[in-house]
């Protein structure tokens, strides 16, 4: 092995990145501004509302979508986080999660639909998804810093990439799982591809797609915590600080807060997916 010249992969990648940055910096700047303002908008918007009111609003939302028990848990959980003094970081984290999930859905569902229709797309996307899911989460952060500096934006971008695969995969799966006799029926009546998708396949795949969205939310939650290493604000930042300063007590407090948020988001979105509509069994 010693005889073989060592190919400078790392160098090539670095050069490639430099080239990308040089070429597309206006694009990246645009994305950067957009993401930052969305996150900021959410944080500011939610920040205006008194914590108690917001907690009640969330509880009502939980009640409407899922069960009374979860609504109660939401109320108590949010008030507890407020009591611990993590209300504002919690809002920041929530804004990061919402923004990244929004983009994960906006990108992931169309890609998933495309994959379900075209075998060639599927062949290209599948290994990419494998790569995205197995690559250590930290690795996304490095190029994200290059393109978007430090702060909120690389955090959002990294967690969009990290959390998108389940939405893509489950959208694809849900559409492919629609029984073939139903597909045949839509074809026999002369549906166009879009009519088949929009009227039959996507509505029937909805529970599966929602399960994917739920998974994406969970993944992005874990990613925004890691993203605190590149300066993303929120509860993750608190964890990071607790770790670096070896403050176990604070670490546990913040950790519990994150778990509470995770449980609330998970239960609410799970029910959104399962929520019965008409005759779907």
């Amino acid at each position, binding site marked *: 092995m010693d005889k073989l010249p060592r190919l400078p992969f790392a160098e090539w990648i670095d050069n490639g990145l430099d080239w990308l940055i040089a070429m597309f910096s206006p694009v990246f700047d645009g994305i950067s501004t957009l993401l930052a303002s969305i996150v900021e908008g959410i944080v500011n918007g939610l920040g205006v509302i008194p914590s108690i009111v917001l907690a009640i609003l969330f509880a009502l939302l939980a009640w409407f979508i899922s069960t009374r028990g979860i609504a109660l848990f939401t109320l108590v959980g949010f008030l507890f986080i407020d009591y611990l003094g993590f209300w504002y970081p919690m809002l920041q984290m929530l804004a990061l999660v919402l923004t990244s999930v929004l983009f994960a859905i906006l990108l992931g569902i169309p890609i998933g639909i495309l994959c379900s229709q075209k075998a060639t797309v599927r062949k290209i996307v599948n290994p990419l998804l494998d790569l995205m899911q197995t690559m250590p989460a930290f690795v996304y952060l490095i190029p994200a810093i290059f393109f978007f500096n430090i702060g909120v934006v690389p955090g959002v971008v990294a967690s969009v990439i990290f959390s998108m695969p389940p939405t893509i995969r489950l959208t694809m799966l849900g559409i492919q799982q629609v029984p073939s*006799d*139903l597909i*045949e*029926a839509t*074809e026999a*009546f*002369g*549906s166009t591809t879009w009519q088949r998708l929009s009227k039959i396949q996507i509505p029937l795949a909805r529970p599966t797609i929602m399960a994917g969205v739920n998974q994406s939310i969970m993944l992005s939650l874990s990613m925004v915590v890691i993203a605190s290493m590149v300066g993303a604000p929120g509860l993750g930042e608190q964890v990071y600080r607790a770790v670096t300063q070896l403050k176990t007590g604070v670490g546990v407090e913040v950790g519990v807060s994150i778990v509470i948020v995770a449980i609330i988001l998970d239960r609410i979105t799970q029910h959104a997916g399962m929520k019965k509509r008409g005759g779907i069994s």
Partner: protein
Amino acid sequence: MTDQEVRKKIEVKKATKIFGRNSKRAAQMLQEGKDKEEILKATGATIGVNHAEFDIYDGEIFVIMGLSGSGKSTLVRLLNRLIEPTSGHILLDGEDIVRMSKEQLRKVRREKIGMVFQNFALFPHKTILSNTEYGLEIQGVPKEDRQAKAKEALKLVGLAGYEEQFPNQLSGGMQQRVGLARALANDPDILLMDEAFSALDPLIRKDMQDELLQLHSEMGKTFIFITHDLDEALRIGDRIALMKDGEVVQLGTPEEILMSPSNEYVERFVEDVDLSKVLTAAHIMKQADTVQVDRGPRVALRLMKRLRISSIYVVDKRGQLLGAVTAQDTVNAIENDQSLEDVLIDSLPVVSPDCVLTELFDLVSTATIPVAVVDEQNRMQGIIIRGALIGALSGDGQFINENGVIEPIDEVTEEVMQNG
């Protein structure tokens, strides 16, 4: 259907479907006359449909019948190109479906061909009404129009009032009615029914068959019905195409298939058929000897003596059945100087010519004289003799009238009649 009014709705010309990669090679081997097994071994390709060639007439119920794997489901899907034929042509109203562009094909599917599926294939997330209006919805028909048409179609299949239910709230039979309504709502010329009743239990199945026949006679559409059940095929088909290994092995009316199977395969197929559900009174009735009522008892008695029978049916001048007289009563009538009317036994059981044999058993076994077959005007058509009924059930061709020709009672049956 007489020959003059026959119009070809669909012409299938050498339609062939080969599944698998080496379809070219397989097609070549097929040309050389190699069989399915050989081709599978050599190329890995499966022959779905092999040079199917037949016409389907406007307004008939055409049944494609065969066991599973015979290619019948593939064949029906070639008709609306849900499956792309490997070669051959399919002409619908003279236009070749195989050569149509996607748009043209979509138009044909929307306007001319409806389809009903074995497992109903209803959309579980849509109500019965919105399932039924689906075909119209995708054509862009305004909501009110399409709902009105869908409701009409649901009414036609007896499901008025179920519009807002969901498919899983309905029984299998009802679900298939929705499937039927969905296909009818588009008002297509042709209805493809792929094993439409196979998933239903036998009683509901029979009801559905009856309703289908009724719908057919009301609407005059062309029905193409796939089934693996010979009884069903014989019951509803105007003509039947029997398939085996992707080939149409025989095509004919139910009677032709039953009575003259073209080869051993068809013969084996039909030997288990329950003849009692297929054959009707018209198939087994014999020419009746009757006497006109005004001829008097002496003529009646002489006829009976010469024919060596113990009773005879009495008709009026127009051939309408009045009743029967026995030889003993006739003798008494002559002695007492009575007319035939005085000793006439009326209120005898009668049957119509299209009554199937199963419905005859009870009647024939309890009747003291052969049961009379009469048409709607109560005109005497023939009689049913116990021996002929049993003979026909055993599949003995000499007891079955072919092509509607009613044989006079010959010596064999005369003897039977004596005993009967």
